[in-house]
């Protein structure tokens, strides 16, 4: 399968996502510049982490105007799988491909550390290899990952089973201390109603090789390949 990794000016996990797709998963991948207007036949689109356009104005706010985003939207509307990681998640929210918004972390500080997330849904292209309730240890690295949606939206998200990952303790319990940024309903990952677009704050590509001391991110990455193979 072929991955497209979108490169915005200020993306800084683009090479990491590319490395994960090619070196870790053994698939083909192409870095696609934000001014391009063609996804070049990709089967899966990754919006990587970073600080697109410097995150000036608001995280992800400018990136949605990049020419390639029209293609990403069209791709998603056709049912194509899209994963936004960290800043990519923020861009998906700003682009309206996922509901809600990001606020600054509770505590107002950037946080980089390993956290635990519990898999809530497995009928998405990034969790189909996991089992419900599975707890993954994956790093985060963000200053604005405090997910927010108004009560009615939140109700709809929950009713539609769109929450894919929640911050929990190591044994899968919801606990305020285990929520690193104050996200409502401890939401760490979210999918679209059609379930093909997923955003997540944790970085699976940072936990995908033994050399990095943690391989739980492989559950996410290998799900992508599995979903493609069984589609």
């Amino acid at each position: 399968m072929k991955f497209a990794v979108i490169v915005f000016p200020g993306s800084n996990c683009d090479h990491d996502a590319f490395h994960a797709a090619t070196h870790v998963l053994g698939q083909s991948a192409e870095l696609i510049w934000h001014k391009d207007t063609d996804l070049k036949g990709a089967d899966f689109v990754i919006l990587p982490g970073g600080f697109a356009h410097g995150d000036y104005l608001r995280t992800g706010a400018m990136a949605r105007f990049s020419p390639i985003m029209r293609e990403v939207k069209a791709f998603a509307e056709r049912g194509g799988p899209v994963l936004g990681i960290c800043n990519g998640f923020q861009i998906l929210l700003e682009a309206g491909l996922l509901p809600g918004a990001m606020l600054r972390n509770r505590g107002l500080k950037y946080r980089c550390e390993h956290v635990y997330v519990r898999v809530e849904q497995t009928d998405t292209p990034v969790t189909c290899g996991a089992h419900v309730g599975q707890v993954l240890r994956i790093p985060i690295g963000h200053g604005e990952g405090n997910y927010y949606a108004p009560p009615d939206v939140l109700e709809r998200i929950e009713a539609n089973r769109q929450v894919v990952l929640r911050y929990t303790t190591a044994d899968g319990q919801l606990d305020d201390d285990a929520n690193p940024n104050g996200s409502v309903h401890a939401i760490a990952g979210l999918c679209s109603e059609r379930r093909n677009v997923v955003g997540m704050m944790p970085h699976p590509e940072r936990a995908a090789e033994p050399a990095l001391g943690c391989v739980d991110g492989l559950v996410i990455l290998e799900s992508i390949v599995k979903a493609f193979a069984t589609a």
Partner: protein
Amino acid sequence: MSIDSATIERHGLKPEEYDRIVKFLGRQPNLTELGIYSVMWSEHCSYKSSRVHLKTLPTEGPQVLQGPGENAGAVDIGSGLAAVFKIESHNHPSFIEPYQGAATGVGGIIRDIFTMGARPIALMNSLRFGSLSAPGTSRLMEGVVAGIAGYGNSIGIPTIGGEIGFEPSYAGNPLVNVFCLGIARQADIIKGVASGVGNAVYYVGAKTGRDGIHGATMASAEFDEKSSEKRPAVQVGDPFMEKLLLEACLEVMQTDALVGIQDMGAAGLTCSTTEMGSRGGAGVEIDVSLVPQRETGMTPYEIMLSESQERMLLVVKRGREAEVEKIFDKWDLHAVHIGDVTSDGMLRVRNRGQVVAEIPNRSLTDEAPVYHRPMEPPAYLADVQRLDLDAVAADSTMPEATDALMALLSTPNISSKKWAYRQYDHMVQTNTVNLPGFGAGVVRIKGTDRALAMSVDGNGRYCYLDPKHGAMLAVAEAARNVACAGALPIAATNCLNFGNPERPAIMWQFAQAVEGIGEACRVLNVPITGGNVSLYNETDGKAIYPTPIIGVVGVLERADAVVGRQFKRSGDVIMLLGEGRGELGGSQYLQTLHDLVRGLPPRLDLEAEKALQRLLVDLAAERLIHSAHDCSDGGLAVTVAECCFDTGGAGAEISIGGLNIGRDSRLNDAVALFGESASRVVISTTSDTVTEILQRAAAVGVLARVIGETGGNRLRIAVAGRVVIDASVDDAERIWSTSIEHVFARRVA
């Protein structure tokens, strides 16, 4: 207009220096020329006080591809790759404006690295503040840490470690030393050189504003009061702009259309044009009216002296301009052709065609003044070097050893710095093999089996008590930390933070420290490939502790053989390599428990240190050890405690021999537990490997002995058969890991 003596003085130039300028030019300089000389001959750019001493440092070796004098040093790390690295200070700006001062420090060192054609893959920093409990320190530290995080996180280079120290002497002069390392293909290394008559000089990056024009040169006849109001004292960083510059420059470097490139750091356009011309033996001619400007009405003087951030100067081969411009356009950066390389060795500055400055390049660089400043040992030295342990015991209530350990674990110099490094993205680029706080910073090199380990270290207290010895210990500790990770130390960089060099006592400290660094680097085979000197770190005539910070880089042949500080499993044997020598001088124990900064720092046998490091590298390569942790601040007891931390509460039983140094038995215990004798490392291994390690150590003359075993959930240490420390690891770890966090939590509350 002729230059009066007040103007010369305002530019920080001595009358004899002005005479020298007149001699070089064969005429009086104009104000723009005076400004150019003043910044190029400033201590910061010319190293006029330090140069004679720095020349004595070892800078060569088969591994060195680029020594001092370029934007950064470079060493061979195998597979045709080079590690390009340097450390630099941003002390003064960080005190004035902590966030931006620290942020632009990070931005500056990153530019130095990618300017050489290397992709930056790791940042580290060494920070010093006043006592954390003193008013203002936490605010300053919060700003500095946020500034480092704000810049590094955004540009996507992991901050993988470093050190933070607190001493009252840094209260008015915090230190912010920033280290960056990048990887380049050796064949792709590019220099800051201008050559080839007719080649084009390009300016790219942020527009030039009035920011950062040096304080000494700020007040001049051309400024009125209003313009000075607009001029911020510290530059403002834009990591997004720098990210674009980084990517665009690395892309341009792939084309071989460049002759040379240099960032505009200190002294901005002036320094980059003259240094590039001087290195290439060429002249550079530019027209300042072509320089992109952020403000209107800027004079040639201001444009040449501005230190606006995120700007680069490039020399492009004639005929290749369009190719280069196209790449910058892709990144929405505008590359502007502002001048050309000439053959006459002059820096010629025009403004709309009219010549406004014309100076021989070499007079600004190689022929800048050099001083042999007077030196004499400081008056305080003889007194502070005296330490009477019996008097210490008599004068104070001697604490129980367990209480002393807890006090040390909670002292900010020793306690966990997680509060800071959690704010740094230390995992971006997915190379970080050793997380911050777990020993030396270690990053793997993708595409190879190797990893690089790096450590920045320095102990101002030791250097205050004995600058030469303290500096040697800094080199030894940085190299030892690298070796503990399993990497062979191959090169070093230094950042020399001192007071006013015009005072003989400070100059003596400086010269002594450089001598110590040279001696240690020679024996440990870590040549200095570059660095930075920061002088005048004093307030109201009171200087900081002399603080040389040493960064050492080492190569780990197999990334997966990396060794960390933590004990790995229960039932492992704990061994001590090296020997306690009954030393307590300059220790953290004396400072924390007895409020004393006294005595001589630990002795250092460089040959023994070298043997120890070599042994560690071999043991790691053969996967014979599970953990390795260097004994430094707080001595053996703190070291063993730290080995227990971040393991989920694993305990240890330790038994060591007693000492008979003084009359008080508690003090004798304290020396054994908390003395900071150098060249010691605590390792853990399986019981069936012990004999082999003992033999290997004996063969290379390193003293090794079994001192205990891992297991349980308590840390117990016996001295001469008596258990003197007995603590729950969980309790000890809670104290160690939350002490700094609590200071900031209280501040918010």
